[in-house]
């Protein structure tokens, strides 16, 4: 089945003329029609746009002039990336009918590379959540067990790639929103270094933490997509002027002698024993490949989650202030005046988790509390970064579990704090702006995927991906498929 191919295998078929982008796009659209009603990965599917883009790609491959190594590849994007003329909801009622008049930079780059947009994927409202249950529209299901969540907030993108509903997908990661759903759906999920990929057109959750990255079926695919979307953008002041190397070319190098740090704090109390066993085994595999594993300490880890739950809500409360019913989005009817209108619009347009974080963030920034909360959190952030600096003075890559537990059931984590604790192993990376990737490292007895996280130095995605690729090649985990038609 063409939809089971990796991006690099699919492109090889395009090159040989064994398949066309149009055939691939149609196969994916057919599969979406057949399978997505049970997975529910997509909020919006864009068949006409996809087929038109695919036809153009057909012509380029026929002429032997592809725009890029991923020309014609069908891709899905999280529904918080602005797409001109295609509604962009952020999983929220307040933006249910919002149609941006412009494309996000990553969308422009994907199109310039010839990729085919299949549609927009489901997510926790405004990327706030770890289960994709907080979408205002519907919950996405985990392809490995439909009774379970796919993780979040980019759960739709993770599920789409896992269920072969897209060849690759883009998500965004603020506190683990790519890596955690990648772990839960058994996909490769890469959060690049902060500044590696332009945020222009990414509807902001927490500006200093948000970063766009790919979901893919394997590490090579993730590297291929990253190459296309990475690089300085004059429209994003925080996008770094660092050249994007050919990440794929780097992958082949062996990891002999690579120093791997294993942070003791990442094997937390209450961790699922199956997760711990798989990760420990994965570290043994890496050692057999010539990696030199050594224990390291990241002492501020225990505080990172608390700092994150001040910084991210504070920035979110600010970023979400613009949804006031004046310029775009929904507006509540029957208001007395403009204040009443905005207050009702926001009350009706935002779900409970978004309201909770807006309240928390507003409180943390308000007069009298700033120093104790937001100011303190920014200092903790410095300490988290120093932990990593110290670690990377000794090791090249850090290896750890992506999440402490296996995918949970829908409705299992009702308590907000319990949900937040799920991000404890992914958040420090965002606070420090580092790159991180999650790859499949085994399955529980019940057949649920487990994620292994690699963390790298700033802008050293090359080493990170090389380690992940070496591990992936040494194991057979990629061949297993979810129990779907």
């Amino acid at each position: 089945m063409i939809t089971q191919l990796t991006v690099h295998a699919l492109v090889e078929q395009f090159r040989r003329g064994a398949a066309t982008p149009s055939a691939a796009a149609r196969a994916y659209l057919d599969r979406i029609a057949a399978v997505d009603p049970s997975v529910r990965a997509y909020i919006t599917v864009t068949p006409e746009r996809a087929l038109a883009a695919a036809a153009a790609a057909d012509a380029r491959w026929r002429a032997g002039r592809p725009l890029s190594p991923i020309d014609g590849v069908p891709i899905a994007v999280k529904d918080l990336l602005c797409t001109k003329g295609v509604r962009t909801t952020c999983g929220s009622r307040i933006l249910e009918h919002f149609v941006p008049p412009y494309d996000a930079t990553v969308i422009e780059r994907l199109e310039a590379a010839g990729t085919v947009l299949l549609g927009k994927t489901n997510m926790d409202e405004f990327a706030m959540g770890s289960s994709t249950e907080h979408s205002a529209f519907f919950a996405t299901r985990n392809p490995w067990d439909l009774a379970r969540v796919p993780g979040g907030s980019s759960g739709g993108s993770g599920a789409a790639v896992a269920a072969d509903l897209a060849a690759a997908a883009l998500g965004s990661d603020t506190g683990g929103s790519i890596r955690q759903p990648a772990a839960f759906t058994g996909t490769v999920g890469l959060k690049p270094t902060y500044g590696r990929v332009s945020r222009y057109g990414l509807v902001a959750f927490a500006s200093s933490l948000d970063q766009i990255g790919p979901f893919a079926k394997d590490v090579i695919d993730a590297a291929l997509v990253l190459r296309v979307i990475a690089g300085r953008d004059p429209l994003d002041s925080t996008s770094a002027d660092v050249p994007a190397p050919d990440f794929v070319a780097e992958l082949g190098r062996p990891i002999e002698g690579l120093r791997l740090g294993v942070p003791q704090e990442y094997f937390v109390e209450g961790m699922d024993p199956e997760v711990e066993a798989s990760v420990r085994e994965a570290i043994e595999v890496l050692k057999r490949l010539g990696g030199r594993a050594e224990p390291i300490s990241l002492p501020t880890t225990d505080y990172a989650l608390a700092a994150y739950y001040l910084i991210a809500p504070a920035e979110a409360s600010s970023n979400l202030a613009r949804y006031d019913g004046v310029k775009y989005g929904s507006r509540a009817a029957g208001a007395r005046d403009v204040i009443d209108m905005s207050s009702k619009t926001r009350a009706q347009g935002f779900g409970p988790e978004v309201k909770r974080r807006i309240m928390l963030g507003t409180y943390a920034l308000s007069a009298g509390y700033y120093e104790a909360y937001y100011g303190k959190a920014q200092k903790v952030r410095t300490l988290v970064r120093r932990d990593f600096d110290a670690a990377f003075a000794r090791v090249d890559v850090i290896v750890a579990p992506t999440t402490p537990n296996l995918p949970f059931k829908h409705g299992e984590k009702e308590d907000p704090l319990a949900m937040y604790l799920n991000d404890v192993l992914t958040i420090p990376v965002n606070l420090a702006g580092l790159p991180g990737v999650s790859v499949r490292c085994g399955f529980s007895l019940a057949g649920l995927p487990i994620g292994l996280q690699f963390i790298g130095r700033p802008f050293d995605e090359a080493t990170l991906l090389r380690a992940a690729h070496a591990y992936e090649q040494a194991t057979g985990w990629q061949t297993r498929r979810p129990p779907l038609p």
Partner: protein
Amino acid sequence: MTDPSAAYEVVIGLEVHAQLRTRSKMFCGCPTAFGAPPNSQTCPVCQGMPGSLPVINRRAVEFGVRTALAFHCRVNASCRFARKHYYYPDMPKNYQISQYEEPLAEDGWLELQADGQPRRIAIQRLHLEEDVGRLIHEGTLETAHASLVDFNRSGVPLMETVSQPDVRSPEEAAAYLRAFRAVLLYLGVCDGNMEEGSLRCDANISLRRWGAPDLGTKVEIKNLNSFKNVQRALEFEALRQREALDRGERIVQETRLWDADRGRTRTMRGKEQAHDYRYFPEPDLVPLELSRASVEAVRADLPELPAARRQRFVREYGLPTYDADLLTQTRALADYYEAAVREVPHPKLVSNWMMSELLRAIPADDERALAASPISPRHLAGLLRLVADGTITGKIAKDVFEKMFRSGEDALTIVGREGLTQIADTAALGAVVDQVLRANPKAVEDWRRGKKAAAGALVGQVMKATQGKANPSVVNSLLEAKLSQL
């Protein structure tokens, strides 16, 4: 109005928002032109669309540095932007990108003339921010059922300059603003147009008994859109506070709005409703670290500023302080003066003509009108050259000036065409004088009887007969000679 200064000292601080004359907005590429059709100069960034991001306009920063140096401020080695939060429908993101803890520049001063004496008003800080959109109320703000929003102005670069509470009277506040505006115009960083909102002022004012060590409770006044309104509002407010204090009342810390139509201030919001702006560093922008060298480069490029130019005009052209003050109000006016003096080296003559004639037709502070003046400095000099060498009389020159202003022609053309050249020839004028004496026997008789004033009427007749072209001193001496011979 009774003078509040009798028992109390008036303490005023001023906050001025100046729109910077950049070509594009503070954080996006939209143009900044005034008066475009509604919402025609916007983009995702300045309309605060989801996903949009700001990028700092380099020229706005340069303009800020230039102004800071002109105000003798310390330009901070590192500064950053912060978000200032409050909800208002003209503010697209419901936060304004401004500067808070680390402004562009601090600690400077502005010199102004108070009663002919130079006085320095300390400047506390200068920072950059973005403007908001514009609201149009369907009716007045109070009665409107709905309002309309235009985001064309949203994102236009603003420079906010906050003075220390050093200003001691409403007149001095107006003088501060005039001097402030002059500096901005000299620097070319702002067009200074108050009607279009390029320059806006908020003031805070408090009263204290003379000699009291602590400042009184201050009241902030908003909506001051002209020098005159600043002075009027502060005069009203000083009196209101004084009367309240005299009645033994306490001043309430609040924000008041100036209502120019009613000539009074009224409460806008009290202290208990004071905003909680929740400032925090703008995560979408990175800090600015301006090197010493780059700041020094801007300093080296500063033009001569009003105070220095005023002093030079006195020194170099021998002008009275009054003239120098007036002519250096704007850079364009001073440039005009110097261009004219270069053509005709009679500094006081040029000054007189500019003050009495040119500035009657063109407001002294209106650089645009001056630039569009039909009489260029060269044309004015051409006219004054004819006056200086006696080709035409002062009286004729005034007519010629008006004709030049209407037609844009130069003086020689008009004088040549209309035969306005002064007559100083004794023989020619002698014949006219004889004629006038013959035609006015009564005046001659009056003169003979000792009514010397009758000579004036005779001069007038001679001027009339020559259409004003007769040289007045030649006419006088001829008349005197001929009358005494009679």
